[in-house]
């Protein structure tokens, strides 16, 4: 009996803990939005900042009077860098806290983990990080860059402006680099680059001993053709990688490295003097010269009470996503998921690089691609800015997805329409 009571108590505690804790404090006239970013564990390093941005955006919006005359309330949870926990927390936010939309996730794994939850419970997720593409969900908005909004323009820049002919595609061994490198390889070969001029290299997460690989890059780069490294190396492994590059004396003038996962935040942990000239491709840099950006940075410094905090691309993506959602809700006059999903398509909001970004029917957005060179102060000097590019969810350079498109407007309402067969559902066999 003792045991029974205890087990019962445990179960009850479990249920209690997960049923709306926040509900008790929520006033009637607020609209709740969920913030689903890891605050502990390995991903906290990147995601904590995004949680702060969301809190700032909510605060700013409330100063402006909220949405639909109601105040916004952010419900913050910690999925602790644990992918199944992401799904659990998403479920909690949607079904217990009844949030109107969720802003969150960083890694593809976390997004993949919550995707079925959002589709099942019909809610909305704004995903603010660059990713490998090859996905389009009715319930997710991808405000980070798709490969064509980051990788391909960067490669173009190197080929055109720096005359690069030989390519090292170095990445951490996970899905984003694998896919991006597949796309890039297909793209480069379509541009006439020979297979022997492409070297692909993968390393484990958190790889810290780069001696051999940097030497290999040096070796590969001494074939007399201009060589560049396209890096999809993930967060933590970058610092030792760049340190090794600097120490082995690889200068940007000799072998430039263009990275897709290195932004202001990552550089903050580095002495960038030896890295000057290495590149990154994003849709936003803190150094963007636009009044809206200056305003944003000012707010950010005021909000965090730290004028050294940097801003970065995923923050801009969160900013765009949030504003697009606000605008869509006001247009729809409700936070009802289906209505918002309808009204958000075509919504244009200012982005931080001085233009506007539009939510496209494929749930990706338009934004310009910026190429920046690392400066000695840890910032990027923008050396090229393209006009706005539409995020392409299905790459044109992968054989199985080149025929696919996504359009969530009625009547098509399909995430994987095959233009060859004219049917929704991939190959449609």
């Amino acid at each position, binding site marked *: 009996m003792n045991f029974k009571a205890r087990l019962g108590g445990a179960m009850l505690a479990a249920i209690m803990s997960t049923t709306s804790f926040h509900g008790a404090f929520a006033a009637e006239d607020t609209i709740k939005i969920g913030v689903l970013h890891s*605050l*502990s564990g*390995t991903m*906290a*390093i990147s995601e*904590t*900042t995004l949680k702060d941005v969301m809190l700032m955006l909510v605060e700013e919006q409330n100063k402006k009077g909220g949405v639909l005359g109601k105040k916004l309330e952010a419900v913050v949870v910690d999925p602790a860098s644990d992918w199944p926990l992401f799904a659990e927390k998403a479920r909690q936010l949607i079904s217990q806290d009844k949030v109107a939309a969720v802003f969150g996730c960083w890694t593809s794994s976390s997004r993949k983990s919550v995707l079925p939850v959002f589709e099942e419970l019909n809610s909305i997720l704004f995903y603010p990080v660059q990713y490998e593409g090859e996905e389009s969900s009715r319930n997710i908005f991808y405000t980070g860059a798709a490969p064509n909004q980051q990788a391909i323009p960067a490669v173009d820049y190197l080929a055109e*402006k*720096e*005359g690069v002919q030989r390519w090292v595609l170095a990445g951490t*061994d996970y899905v984003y680099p694998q896919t991006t490198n597949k796309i890039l390889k297909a793209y480069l070969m379509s541009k006439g680059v020979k297979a022997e001029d492409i070297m692909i*290299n*993968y*390393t*484990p997460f*958190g*790889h*810290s*001993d780069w*001696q*051999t*690989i940097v*030497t*290999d890059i*040096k*070796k590969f*780069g*001494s*074939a*007399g*053709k201009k060589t560049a490294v396209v890096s999809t190396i993930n967060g*933590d492994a970058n*610092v*030792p990688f760049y*340190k*090794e590059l*600097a*120490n*082995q*004396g690889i200068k*940007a*003038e*000799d072998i*430039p490295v263009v990275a897709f996962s290195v932004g202001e*935040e*990552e550089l*903050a*942990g*580095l*002495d960038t003097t*030896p890295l000057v*000239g290495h*590149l990154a491709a994003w849709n936003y840099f803190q150094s963007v010269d636009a009044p809206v950006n200056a305003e944003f940075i000012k707010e950010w410094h005021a909000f965090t009470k730290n004028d050294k905090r940097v801003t970065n691309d995923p923050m801009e993506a969160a900013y765009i996503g949030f504003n697009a959602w606000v605008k869509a809700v006001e247009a729809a006059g409700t936070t009802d998921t289906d209505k918002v999903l309808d009204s958000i398509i075509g919504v244009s909001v200012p982005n931080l690089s001085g233009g506007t970004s539009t939510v496209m029917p494929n749930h990706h957005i338009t934004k310009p691609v910026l190429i920046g*060179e690392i*400066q*000695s102060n840890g910032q990027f*000097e923008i*050396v090229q800015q393209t006009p706005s590019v539409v995020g392409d969810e299905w790459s044109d350079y992968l054989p199985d997805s080149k025929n696919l498109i996504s359009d969530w407007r009625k009547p098509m309402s399909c995430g994987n329409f095959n233009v060859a067969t004219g049917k929704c559902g991939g190959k449609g066999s």
Partner: protein
Amino acid sequence: MLRFFLSILLMILALATQSVAQSDPKALIDALGKADFKQAEDLLGQIAASADPRVVPALEAFNDGDLYVRKSDGAVFITRASGANLALIDPLSGAAAGEAPKGAMTKLKINNSLRRVLRSALGGLTLLSPDRNVRLSAADAVLRSPSAENLELVEAALAKETDREVKARMEEARAASVLSSDRPVDQKRAAIETIGSIGGRDAISILMSASASLDASLKPDVDRAISKIQSSLAFWDLGQNVWYGISLGSVLLLAAIGLAITFGVMGIINMAHGEMVMIGAYATFMVQEVIRTSAPQLFDWSLAIAVPVAFLVTGAIGLVIERGVIRFLYGRPLETLLATWGVSLILQQTVRSIFGPTNREVGNPSWMSGSFALGGLSITWNRLWIVAFSLSIFFGLLILMKRSAFGLQMRAVTQNRRMASSMGIRTAWVDAFTFALGSGIAGIAGVALSQIDNVSPNLGQSYIIDSFMVVVFGGVGNLWGTLVGALSLGVLNKFLEPSVGAVLGKILVLVLIILFIQKRPRGLFALKGRAIEA
């Protein structure tokens, strides 16, 4: 229509650049203010061709991002920060030209291609500098970005050069320039010879890039030179791999050596060991932060200062952990695992709360930056120092254990606690200080690791498993085992990596360790006998 206007515009621009070509350097520099990257490259070529040494400061400023154009009149100045304003300096004469607010000036942008051209131009222009070192680096610059334009400058400089080393370098630079010029075939053949004798990857690179434009009759010479370099490189590659292995091994040794005490000697499965390393790295960060703000001239000493600081901080934390938690758990090794894991979670989250979750910048002192060549080996200074540092910690510890009174007491307590205490040794304090020593050494390791890895709250976790592997592989309770274990795992890893890749290499090493433990359940340097199992 639009296209028409554009082409007109381009023509005008082209004319403009053309016209300034004839004029003086001042006009050329001012033209930089309006040029895009492509045009700037042309302009730099002309500036270099003018061979006018007065432009050197302007080009250096351009390279450093200190060259600005005044918005009002398009005049270009070298600038220095002066409060909120910029102090303007005339680019040619070097005379002060007043100040201007930052808003009134635009920085001249620079990209990698421009940097390359600049390097070559500056190289050519400074070949005649009175400073020997400047000439040497100028020759280097020319060698690394050879261009036909520089050839005559190099030859002129060569004629005047008296310093032996500089002269040799200039010969090489000349050879490289010859290859990209339109000199006759026999001169080029000699140049190939010269480049070939430099050896190394850079030489291959120069030869390969030149080979496309060379006369077909020179092809065999190039091939011969390259294959000669490559055969010597193959030999050096082996050495390079061994060096990488040793350097990786020394990192493992650093990470594991504190654990060799807390785990190896005391038998505590210290899962918080990694966090001690992490805290040591943060101590380095704090020391550098203080130095940056209050005594920047001491920066090169920051690591030397950080070592005792890290040792004391982590040692103190270790002392607290031992007194507060571990002393209740002696004789229950598996439970020390749980408790110290809990400690590690708390330490991690504390650091995260104080310093934030993001990486912190720890700089390399100048003596730890860059690399040097030893024969065909390229050895980076930071790795060399880390190898030296970890070995000195190792031997220091060995001496402490074998020679000092504390070491004697420590061994006495771990071997026979009751006997030791009956001989008047205060075993409780010996335990506490032994643990503090292990933690302190982990902290010192953190100082060194901050030089090659991220300084973030996760730093420790990435080393903890490797550290345990090293200690277990080497044999618990044996410092020499830890040394041999670390170095052999490092070398093994580095020899596997090129053939199977980094990921599979690591997996294979783990599997090998598991198999090895089956063969020798107590590690490489296990003590044999019946006493152990009792």
